[in-house]
């Protein structure tokens, strides 16, 4: 879905979710992100974003589940080349973040990515990701937990 489809009549100065259906409540910049996912009542598998049928067992009747904001880094890489059309300016990290018993979501780390390690705890936060035509678009990004980051640095 493109962002143009999310907002019917956006006005200047508005704060808009890049993809509103990803959140369980209206996302507020600077607040922890609460994501809206699905859980299969038959096999227990969890998904993000939401889906109608279970990818694992094909069962229906999936129920909504609120995910995040805390998770652990499964893997990461630091992107050094600009992707055409992207609001992210390199360098930044792409991280796969495992949320509890699942699922794993993919997002970016824009600050403190130098100290990222596999297994590290991160928190998903709502942040502005794109300014366009006087509007601010927000989404969820991962933040390195400040105490963790400090601890790792001292450790080194």
């Amino acid at each position, binding site marked *: 879905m493109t962002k143009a489809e999310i907002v019917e009549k956006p006005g200047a100065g508005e704060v808009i979710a*890049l993809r509103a259906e990803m959140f369980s409540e209206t996302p507020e910049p600077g607040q922890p992100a609460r994501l809206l996912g699905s859980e299969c009542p038959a096999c227990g598998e969890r998904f993000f974003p939401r889906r109608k049928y279970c990818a694992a067992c094909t069962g229906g009747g999936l129920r909504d589940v609120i995910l995040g904001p805390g998770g652990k880094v499964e893997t990461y890489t630091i992107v050094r080349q600009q992707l055409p059309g992207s609001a992210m300016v390199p360098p930044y990290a792409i991280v796969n973040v495992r949320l509890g018993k699942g699922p794993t979501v993919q997002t970016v780390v824009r600050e403190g990515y130098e100290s990222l390690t596999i297994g590290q705890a991160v928190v998903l936060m709502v942040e502005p990701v794109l300014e366009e035509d006087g509007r601010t678009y927000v989404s969820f990004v991962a933040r390195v937990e400040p105490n963790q980051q400090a601890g790792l640095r001292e450790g080194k």
Partner: protein
Amino acid sequence: MRDVLVLGAGLHRFGRFPDKSLQDLGREAIENALADSGVPFKEIEVAYVGRVLAGMGAGLNVVSEMGRTGIPVINIEMACASSTSAFREAYLAIASGIYDTALVVGFEKMQRGLIQISDQKSYQTVMGLAVMPAAYALQAQRYMADHEATPEMFAQVSVKSHRNGAANPYAQYQSAVTLEEVMSSRMIADPVTLLQCSPTTDGAAAVVLCAASRAAHYSAKRSIRVAGWATGSGRYQPQGEGDEGEADTGEIGRLASLAFERAGIAPQDVDVTQVHDAFAPGEIFSIEGLGLVPVGEGARAVWEGRTEITGDIPVNTDGGLLSRGHPIGATGCAMVTEVFRQLTGEAGARQVKDGDAKVGLIQNAGIGGMNILVFER
């Protein structure tokens, strides 16, 4: 099901050809494949075409360069695995007895730069996630955390591929590079550097298939047999299965087992292999997934030279996607072409096993699925 043979294969050189049309590229590959097979175009009963970026009806636009005989021309798209998908359809059509002869063609003309895998306005693009090399880099980072591997071992894949490409007159890149050059080239997504990324490419490849029972009708003096195959679309792997986030070889392994079972062989019977090295770490993940080496030992196998032309498990002998080039619709057919040359002892400076290679294996992956093919001389 009937036995099906590959009677001939042909390429248009891979590279950048801004002054040539898709028709120019495709026609030359088809001419070469037909001449190699001894089958005249008027005897071809069906054509399957792998292509991604060309517009509607591109298959007929290219195939009809050879004449308008009215045969079905079927366009197939499975991203980077399009022309092995086209090959599979051709194989099944002949094996089932519907046709005796088929032409498979793959072609592409591509722009420079990062391949656009998602719409410019999509969430994945705006958020900077639709970065193709990052998909391999994420797996590579996890691989290094889980196994004894270094960035140099991934880079060595590219050193080996470029050396093989230098012996392939159809390759996009025909010059060797050093480990130092690969390591010091621009970092794209850690640990993947520029020289560990396959280029965008213009090119075409074609192969001619024939029912074994009909092959004597033509003048081809040699052939290889389609011995096994498997196709899948990426089965969902539940979160609880396996170690969290471990480099995923599950889907390759599942499909390889199926293809080996159909062929009645085991991984250790394979003499030469072509894998999907869109980015250098891919070779390591693929040889593990295919069962050519145990999981966790792929990086060391590359580092110790086991995947070289002279090694015990030669991989991507024509330079692979990294050096031969990766015109996405043509890549799968180029893999078949190289296996054909290797199993018929016609690979020249790239020949493995002193010309005595009997079994060839292909793994071609794309967004949307994967094909495994097994061939026997």
